[in-house]
Structure formats: C-alpha cells, structure tokens
C-alpha cells in the first residue's frame, strides 16, 4: 500500500507547481535581501520556507477529504485563535493592530493568515455536496455566516486589510455553486454604482476621514497630491517602481529607495516595489508570468479534482491568492489605496509563507487523489 502510494504519488505529484512556488520564494528572498540587506529578514524567510515545505508535503500526502471532514474542528480552533489574539497579554500589538501571537521559537505568528484555510475547508465542506439545483438563499446566508465569524474577529484587531482578503473565498465558492447569474450581475452593477456613492456620502458625512480621502486622492492624481502627507507612501512606491526602468536601477544599493528609507515596509508590503527597482520591467513581467502559470496550474488541478469539495478547495485558494496579488501589486503601482496585505510568496513573513504553502499542499493533495475514488 505504502509502496503503491509512493510510486503513484511521485508520478502524480505536481512538481511544476511546487517548484514554481519555491522558485518565487527564492526570488522573493533575494528581493528581501535587497530591501533590507542589514536585517535578518531574508534568513528568516529561508527558514520559513523550510518549515513551509515540510507542512506542504505533510498536507499533500494526507487525504484532503479526511481534513475536510474535520473542517468544523479546525474552524472552531481557528476562531479560538482569533479570540486569543485579542487578549491583551497574549496578542502582540504592532502598529495599533493586535494581530500577532508571540511564539517561543518562530517569533510571532498571525492567526488571521492561517484561519483562511479552515474557512476554505468549512466552505468547501458545506458547498461541496453534489449539486442538482441553483443556489438557495438559505445556503447563501449560511456561507455568509461561515465567513462572518472570522472576518468579524479580524475586524476587532482591527486589521481591515486581512479581513478584505476573506471575501474572495466566499465569492468564488458561491460563483461555483450555481449562484444565479443575475445575482452576479446585480452584485457587479451595485458595486460599480455604490462604491463611488458610498465614498461621496462618506466624505459628506465625515465618516471617511481626511487621511483616508488623501490616500484615495493620491491614486486619482499622484503628481498633484501632497507628497509629504498621506500620499507619501503611494508616491514613494510609484517613484521606486518607475525608477527601475527596463532592467532595474543602476544606482548603488546604499542609495536605493529602501536603504534611504523613502520606501516604507520594503521587505513586506512594498516588496513588489523593491523588485521593480532592482529588476525593472523585465523582472516584474517574469514574476507576473510565474504567478500566471502557478494560478493556471492550480485551476487545471481544480478541473481534474475528483469531487466538488476538492474543486472548491483549490478554487477558493486561487481566488484568495489572485485577489491578494492584485491588491498588493495594485497598491505598489499606485492603483489602489495603501492596504497592509502581503504579496503571497514574496513578502517576508513566516505566517504568510506557511499559510500559502499549506494551501498549495491542499491543492496537491486534491490532485494526487484525482484517480482515487
């Protein structure tokens, strides 16, 4: 049994997916080193990669259906972690957000990154049963409820950036669970209309504060925004990206935007800007292509999944991954306001790397079982 499993596993294991992910982390580690050459972030990232690989392999060789079966337990455990993090003595406060738990060896860890996985499993378990009919309102409410608990707790931290990254998980699951197209259309039209309306109303009523307005104004018109105030981060990120040109900046590293502290959080939130400064348009496009291949590979895996549950697990992961990609790079390119969301596989941070590799582990696990029934 073990021998058969091993042999088939080696054949069916998605080597390209795993190697691509490892490759991107390696590339990211180089950029982290560029961003903060004097700090130990890049070494920690490599240690994180080691831990993440072990976790990925463990998950990959475990039957995802067993794990989905226990999803409620993971989900409740995740909620408990999110509650614990809010307790002042245990949760660490960084930049006004109580989002981290201090751990003895690995330093600090961020439950909101990990709870995405039990949430995905819970959604997959609930919506994974074979469908014969369109999505009912009751199911939709249940889905919203599953999402609302962790999102609510994360908003208490408060970490609205992380909270936003949960929404695509549900959106993808609902979209693939025969939600009626008119709901989808209605949602798209409503958001097109409501988002600007909400902004205008928010400004009028004073609910959207000045600094928040300025963060949005700088995107609409970066050259005229006050570069010294809230537009500062966005503008500096644009300058850093633009400076990279076709093949990367030639200026000595001591004079880079991050070394001179013009670019904030260069190793985490703004790692893409650092990449752009160092490797230019070519490096960035290659990175985007690598992400495209990785995501396509995952979607292919979803198509071949043995059941709806497996398909939903992979696609929810794809949705969350792609959304974070867009939010983070969009922010670095000055198209979206500054939201503290890490770039998957690139940003320094053990929690993010580990959570992403666990997700990839699930995707591989689903694929490994595509012929088993």
């Amino acid at each position, binding site marked *: 049994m073990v021998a058969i499993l091993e042999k088939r596993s080696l054949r069916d294991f998605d080597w390209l997916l795993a190697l691509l992910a490892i490759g991107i982390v390696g590339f990211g580690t180089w950029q982290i080193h560029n961003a903060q050459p004097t700090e130990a972030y890049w070494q920690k990232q490599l240690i994180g990669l080691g831990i993440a690989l072990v976790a990925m392999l463990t998950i990959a060789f475990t039957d995802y259906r067993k794990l989905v079966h226990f999803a409620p337990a993971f989900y409740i455990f995740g909620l408990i972690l999110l509650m614990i993090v809010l307790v002042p003595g245990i949760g660490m406060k960084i930049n006004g957000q109580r989002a981290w738990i201090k751990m003895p060896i690995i330093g600090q860890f961020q439950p909101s990154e990990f709870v995405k996985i039990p949430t995905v499993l819970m959604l997959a378990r609930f919506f994974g049963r074979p469908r014969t009919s369109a999505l009912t309102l009751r199911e939709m409410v249940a889905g919203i409820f599953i999402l609302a608990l962790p999102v609510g707790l994360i908003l208490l931290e408060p970490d609205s950036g992380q909270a936003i990254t949960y929404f695509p998980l549900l959106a993808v699951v609902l979209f693939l669970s025969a939600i009626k197209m008119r709901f989808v259309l209605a949602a798209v039209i409503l958001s097109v209309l409501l988002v600007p309306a909400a902004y205008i109303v928010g400004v009028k009523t004073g609910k959207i504060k000045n600094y928040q307005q300025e963060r949005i104004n700088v995107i609409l018109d970066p050259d005229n925004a006050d570069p010294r105030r809230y537009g500062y981060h966005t503008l500096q990120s644009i300058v*850093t990206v633009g400076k990279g040109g076709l093949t990367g900046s030639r200026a000595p590293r001591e004079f880079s935007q991050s070394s*001179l*502290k013009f670019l904030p959080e260069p190793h985490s939130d703004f790692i893409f800007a650092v990449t752009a400064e160092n490797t230019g348009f070519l490096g960035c496009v290659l990175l985007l292509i690598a992400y495209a291949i990785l995501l396509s590979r995952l979607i292919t895996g979803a198509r071949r999944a043995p059941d709806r549950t497996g398909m939903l697990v992979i696609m929810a992961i794809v949705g969350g991954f792609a959304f974070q990609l867009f939010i983070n790079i969009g922010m670095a390119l000055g198209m979206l306001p500054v939201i503290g969301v890490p770039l998957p596989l690139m940003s320094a941070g053990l929690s993010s790397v580990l959570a992403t590799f666990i997700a990839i582990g699930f995707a591989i696990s689903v694929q490994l079982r595509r012929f088993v029934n």
Partner: protein
Amino acid sequence: MKFEDDSQNLRVRLRVIQILIVLMLAVLGVRLYMLQIVKGGYYAERAENQRIRLLPIPAPRGAILDRTGKKVLVDSQSIYNVIISREDVKGGFDSLIEPLANGLNVDPEYLRERFKEIASQPAFESIRVKENANAQDISWVEAHTLEFPELRVEQQPQRRYPENGMLAHVLGYVGEISSEQLELPKFKSKGYKPGDIIGIEGIEAVYDDALRGRDGYRKVVVDSRGHIQEEIEKVEPQAGQDLVTTIDLDLQATAEEQLRNSPSKRGVIIAMDPNNGEILALASAPTFDPNLFSQRITSKEGRAEYAALLKDPRTPLYNRAIQGRYPPGSTWKIPMAVAGLQQGAISIDHSALVCGGGITIGNKFTRCMGNHGTPELRMAITKSCDGYFYRLGLKMTLNGIMQMVDEFDLNKRTGVDLPHELISWTPSQEFKARFNPRDPEWRDIDTVYASFGQVYDFVTPMALLRTIASIGVGGQMYIPHLMKEVREIAAVGDPDKPDYREARPAHGFDRTQPKVIPIPEDQHHFVVEGMWGVVNNGGTAGKIKMAGFDIAGKTGTAQVVGLGKDTGENKDHAWFVSFAPAYKPEISVLALIENVGFGGTHAAPAARALYDVYYRNTRHEDPPGALVAKK
C-alpha cells in the same frame, strides 16, 4: 471533470475566473509598462532629486582695508545660522511658525515672509530661519531634533563693521538679496539665489563682484529624514578679493570726532588728495551702525531699530556727502571767480568791481555783509564780498554761470564709487520755471542770487569739493574714489572641472584720467592768492592759520531761511572748502556743519583739525599753532 454538473455551467464559470485572473495580470503589466518604460526616466530623476542635496559652503567675503593695506576696516567672522531644508518639511510650514518663533526668538512675521518667499524656489534649497544663532538657540535646536528633524545648524561668515558707526556711509553694508533684486537681469545672469548675501550700500555694494566669494558646495545623499548618508562631491569655496581703500584712518577718526563734537552734530567732512582723487576721509553725521544690517536685522529688536532709523528726522542713513544738496553760499564764489576770468568778464589787470554794500535791482535791495569799496578779485574772495560777486554774476549773465557749471561738472554726478549719488541742482531757466512757476521768467535778480550760492544753487558736498580741489591743482578734475586696489585671489579647484574657480587678478581704480579744465596759470595763481588770503591774510578764516603750511580756502554760510529768522534749529549751514599747501596742494578738505552759523566760526576749525593730523603724520612734528585750532 470527475463529477457531473453541466447544468451549472461549471466549466464556463471556471473559465471566467481564469480569464479574470489573466486580465488582472494584464492590467498590472500595462501599468508597469506605463510607470517603468514610459515614465521611467521621470521617476528615476525624481528619486535622484529627493536623495541628493546641495549644501552650500559659504565663501568668506573679501576684507576691506585702509589705505596702508594693513588695518582691517571690515572682515567676516563665523556665525551660526539655523536653517531648514524645504524638502524635509513634511507638514505645512504654518505649523512651524509659532514653535520656531518662540523657541528661537524670531519675529513670526519674518518667518511667514520667509516661508512665502521660498515657496517659489527649488525644493532642495534651504531657508535660513534664524541668523546669528547664539549658544542658547543651538542647544534649543539640538534638544528638539525629534520634533523638528528638519532643522539644521549651519556655519556662515558674517560681516563685522567698525564700532560707533565709523565709516558707515563709506563701507555700506551687506544683506540678503531681495526677491525683487533676484528678478533683475544684473543679478539673474550671475546665478544669485535666495539667501545670498550681497552688498546693499557703500563700497560693499559697488565692489560686490570683487568682494563676493564664490560659494562652494557639498553634494550629499540624504535619507528620507534629511540625514546625510554620504558625500558624493565637494567643491571648495573661493574667498572674495580683499579691497584696499583710500581711507586714512587717522583723518577719518578726526573727521568723525569733529562732527560728533559740533553743536548740531550734523554735517559732512571730506578729505581728498587733489592730485589723484583718492578720498582720504569721508564722514557724514549722524551715522548708524551697519552691523544692524549684517547681524541683527532678522530679530525683532533689529527690525524696530531699522524702522526708527528710517523715521529719524536727522536722516542718519543718508550719506550727506553725495545725497545731501546744500546751497553752497560763498564757497560758490571760487568757481565763479575762475569762470569770470576765463570768460573775460574780468581780467587779472582789471578785476576790480564795486561792492556798494549791496545792489538794487528794480525796487529790491540785496545787501552785502559789509562795504568793501571797489575791491579787486583777491580781496573780494578774502573778505567774501557779496556785492562784488553780484556784479560779476551780472557781467557773466546766466549763460556764463551755466557754462561754469558745465565746465566743473556741477550738473553731473562726480562718479565717486558709491551708490545712489545725487546730482546737484544748478541755475537754469528750467530750474527757475520749476522752482517758481508763478514767475517762470529769469530776471537779473535771479542772476544775483545764483552768483553768490543761494536760491538756485544746491550742490552735493562731493561735487563742490571736486571743483575746489581741481582749482587747487590748476584744473585737473579727478574722479573722487575710495578704491585703491583690489587684491588678487588664487584659483580654486581642478582646471579641467566645470566648477573650477579661476584666479581673479588684482586691479586698481579704473577711471584715473582727470578732466582737464583750461585755467591759465596766472589766473589760477590769482584766485589761489585770494583763497590764501582767506586764511593767511586777515580773511574770514584767519583764526585757523598754520604758519609754514599755508591753507587756501573759502568759507561759506548757506542761508536756510530768510534773514532774521536764522536762529536755533534754522541757523545757517557753515561751510569751509580748502586745500593745502596753497600753491602745491597735497590735500583738500571740505567741512559742512549743518545749522550752526558762520562758516569761519564752525566749519574752518573742523577742517583745521584734519590738517593738524595730516601735518603730524606727514611732517612728523607738531603742527604750528595747533593749540589755537583745537579750541
């Protein structure tokens, strides 16, 4: 797909998600193309601009020295300024005004102006918020680096002028270039920038080009907080050229002391070498302290002090020597005498004219101070006979007087190397018309007034002295000047680099050619004899006679108001113009004391005090009759 749900279009929906992802990546790719390829150069430059700063290294200004080239009149000493890098101010400037005004004891209004001014300048320029910071200010800046990381302390050379306002009108002062001046082509073309120190008045202004050093700079890389990370390039400053003046400190001190001790404490004394136009002393009283402008002008007290100077009715900021116009009174008789001989109105053999105790024109009698019979020219000068000169003027007519004015350049600037020199007012048909529009016609009575230095004559002391001095040396009209030599300064830097500062050569005053007035030797001698008599032959300044050092001179008493009202504040101005020794002049002295009365009583002794010093320094012995003159 392993499971059946074609009814839900699952394949299509998966495809939709995949397409959305590709679209999203494409949008990011396009944006990257825009930022990095289309506008890459712009952002690279922007990144460069925000990390590169040019920090000026101020060049010391050249010193100003006395005529020996040994005694320093003005030099520069290091002071500390508190400056702000505009680029590093994160919030608005407005929030800085109050804390800085309180912390550094500066006028909030001054800061507001400063910040407004700088708004139009390049971002990497820095603003001086406090000049001449003391130890307390510097420690305040150091104690508040967390609150105001944009503040820096910078070292800068500052001008130090002599105490008690000595030579203030000659040396002038420096100040920061104004925004109006920056717009002028003369400054624009030479690359001046806000905050540059330039000469505003006096020699400092006229010889600014020579005195000014060429600033060096440090090109440094700063981080986002403005902290210097590395120096990329350094260009050393080139100091300004030293300037040797023609000023003789002993004469200058004496001149100022004479004015200070005069009853009205207002007036002018100028001493000049008639053989080349070098000004040995120039004092205008009251004076002011030029250090106000170079050191204190930015403080509240300094600005109040300046406002008070501007309002002072005694106009201490005016250089009376070139900006005061005074009726010359009887001193006017000297050029009149020369011109009368030249034009043939009188001759050496037939120079006698009636005094008559005055003259009647129409029904108006204009009197002379005495009755001198029918004096010849020399006696008329010695005794200052008005009646004589009324008649001489009538013989010369207005045209003759105007010709004289033209000959002695009395209707022009002397060309002295000081800024803002005024032109004297001299008799003419037009002047009368402007002066008295109700009776614009020029009449004989006007000629009478014009011929004895009243009503239509208002001359600057500098113009008058130049005239007298030129008569002393037989018609050589030199341009009075204060610059003797500008010294050489060596080149700085590497000749192959663009910021190489070439050596600047030494040079002297460049307008040394005199205007020559054709005065025949016998006529010259004849007039000088009259002037010699003023001091040495029982004339109006007989009490300042120096045996063995013959002064030739002429007193003058300029009416300020009508006769009979000339008391107190409205007393006449006292003049004395002179040169010595009479027949081989080495020095020419003019003294004007405002509102004190007779020239012979007040102005002549002041001039004598200078001759005493000159005699002592050149003859190395006590001057004859010194005690008499000292009073």
